[in-house]
């Protein structure tokens, strides 16, 4: 018996259902678009800025043997060794130049975008996930550290993965979820000492969740993390003797003000806007609370509260410790709080009963991030110092020359990376003979007139706030490096007390560009 053929809407309906079931969800399409935008923002300008002092140290360390690298990390660095080991292996494949080193961080930074989506999807909703991913994709703070050859992008990724599996374990404390949580938490601990401030609230929340049952999986997970903590403890103790005193030069209250501005607007913390940071954060917090209270459903509020609790402890415990004297607080160290905060914002922006206000908040936040990114892109003052440009302005050296850099150690190591024939370290009492003395100062300094007898200005160029002047000295100077640094004050002034003095042997090779 033949069945009558189904035509028209009766046949189309199941096909529509099937097509809709097979088609990717709008959220997935959006996530892909957001990842593409985030990747473009990170990769298109990856080498636009020079390496700064910390990155120059990384670049130098990538040329060491594995043993020497570990020694250097222990002696010179203030973080555990995992990033340096991974970057060292990476550099053997992709090189240790600007592009090769930063590409590692860029890939991690791009990976952070879907991770943010997963965190918000797990705790709130897919829509919140898309908003959280979009915030990560265009945020100048996240873009900055995705383009920095240091440990922060790796730290952010392991922290986000730890947070994701904590959220999953909070919903379903299976051995699998707890195992992944333990693994990523341990990796985060091996990447940065501040990871503990994220893992602490995560562990407490999981312990509260399981109550008195205390499943073996959770105890094992905590033991794994404790072992990782114990492994880095000697490093942490010895690192407190490292030159971290520079942090305390800047008042804690100022650094606290910087946190919301740096988190939201990146390097614009170097602008006067920083004084409004806490007020801005308070207003944003009030709007988010009001949206969640008025427009969110119970499950969304619960997920947002979980993320907010983790973020609050991650931010506040270091502040309290700093106030008590254990002060290592700089905004980038608080990076693990960023993804939980993005989840809270994603939840507020997508509350079901206040969609227009929520969408408005999302647009305002995204627009603020993009405008900040444009300001940073257009103003070299908010970018990393242009040491590559300074090296190009110094040009090739026909004979041995001294380069006096008024920015001290901040200048010495990047210039060593960009200019051939300069040793990584020099002794201040080392005596050298040079016929050219070049001074790298600020555009607010000026050439001393009249110049000392026998001194001729060869060239003077400005590079993004730096004044680069080259002098011929006849007869040549045969002096210690510290004396050359002192005498540079007779050429370009006013001079600082402790400039860096580099000696470059004659090289016809132009600096790397």
């Amino acid at each position, binding site marked *: 018996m033949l069945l009558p053929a189904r035509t028209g809407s009766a046949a189309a309906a199941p096909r529509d259902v099937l097509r*809709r079931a097979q088609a990717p*969800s*709008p*959220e997935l399409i*959006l996530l892909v678009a*957001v990842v593409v*935008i985030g990747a473009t923002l990170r990769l*298109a*300008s990856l080498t636009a800025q020079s390496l700064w002092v910390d990155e120059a140290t990384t670049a130098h360390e990538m040329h060491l043997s594995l043993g020497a690298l570990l020694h250097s990390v222990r002696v010179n660095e203030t973080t555990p060794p995992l990033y340096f080991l991974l970057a060292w292996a990476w550099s053997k494949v992709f090189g240790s130049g600007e592009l090769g080193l930063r590409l590692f961080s860029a890939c991690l930074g791009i990976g952070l975008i879907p991770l943010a989506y997963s965190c918000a999807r*797990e*705790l709130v*909703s897919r*829509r919140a996930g*898309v908003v959280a991913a*979009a915030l990560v994709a*265009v945020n100048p703070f996240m873009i900055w550290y995705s383009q920095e050859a240091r440990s922060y992008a790796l730290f952010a990724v392991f922290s986000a993965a730890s947070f994701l599996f904590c959220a*999953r374990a909070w919903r*379903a404390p299976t051995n699998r*979820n707890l195992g992944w949580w333990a693994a990523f938490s341990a990796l985060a601990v091996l990447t940065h000492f501040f990871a503990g401030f994220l893992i602490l609230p995560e562990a407490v929340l999981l312990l509260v969740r399981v109550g008195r049952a205390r499943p073996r999986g959770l105890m094992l997970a905590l033991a794994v993390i404790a072992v990782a903590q114990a492994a880095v403890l000697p490093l942490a103790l010895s690192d407190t003797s490292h030159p971290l005193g520079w942090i305390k*030069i800047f*008042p*804690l*209250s*100022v650094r606290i003000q910087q946190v919301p501005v740096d988190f939201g607007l990146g390097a614009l913390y170097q602008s*006067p*806007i*920083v*004084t409004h940071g*806490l007020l801005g954060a*308070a207003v944003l917090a009030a709007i988010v*609370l009001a949206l969640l209270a008025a427009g969110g459903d119970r499950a969304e509020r619960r*997920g947002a509260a979980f993320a907010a609790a983790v973020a609050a402890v991650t931010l506040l415990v270091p*502040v309290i410790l700093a*106030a008590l004297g254990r002060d290592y607080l700089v905004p980038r160290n608080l990076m693990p709080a960023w993804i939980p905060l993005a989840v809270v914002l994603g939840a507020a922006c997508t509350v079901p009963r206040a*969609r227009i206000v929520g*969408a408005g908040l*999302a*647009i305002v936040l*995204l*627009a603020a991030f*993009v405008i900040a990114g*444009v300001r940073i*892109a*257009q*103003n*070299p*003052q908010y970018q990393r110092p*242009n040491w590559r440009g300074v090296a190009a302005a110094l040009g090739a050296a026909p004979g041995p020359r001294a380069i006096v850099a008024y*920015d*001290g*150690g*901040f200048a010495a190591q990047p210039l060593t990376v960009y200019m051939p024939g300069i040793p990584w370290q020099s002794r201040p009492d080392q005596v050298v003979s040079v016929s050219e003395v070049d001074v790298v100062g*600020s*555009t*607010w300094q000026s050439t001393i007139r009249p110049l000392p007898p026998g001194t001729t200005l060869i060239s003077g160029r*400005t590079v*993004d*706030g730096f004044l680069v002047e080259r002098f011929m000295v006849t007869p040549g100077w045969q002096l210690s490096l510290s004396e050359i640094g002192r005498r540079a004050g007779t050429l370009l*002034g006013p001079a*600082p007390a402790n400039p860096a003095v580099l000696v470059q042997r004659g090289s016809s090779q132009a600096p790397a560009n």
Partner: protein
Amino acid sequence: MSRLRNLIVLVGVLCAFVSTLAAPAFAAQSQVVADCNAHSRLTGHYSSTQLRNALSTMSADVKEYTNCYDVIQRTLLKQLGASGASGSPGQSSGGSFLPTPVIIVLVLLVLGAIGFALAAVRRRNGDGPPTDPPSGA
């Protein structure tokens, strides 16, 4: 409501706590830089010579980790502008690393994506059953 009130009180207490954190001495720098470093702005009045001197002797870490270079430079340029002086050595030569049109296109893409998302989600919620459960383990 009482929870919300408690939260507001807690935030207030934390803000008060933060504002009382003492600023350390900053003896090595000029008075101008010390003032800016302690307050993130200039609380006193300084001559253009003092401001210029502060800019030319500012250490690299203060430039890197505070807003003092920007704050002092703006104040100096304002004074120079008021006195009719022209030209400012502190102005850098520019150097956008991402062309502004590209950024504008990206902004439009983001805004378009948000609009598309809202429309798509609304359409889907209207057409079919809600499909937004947490993923679970």
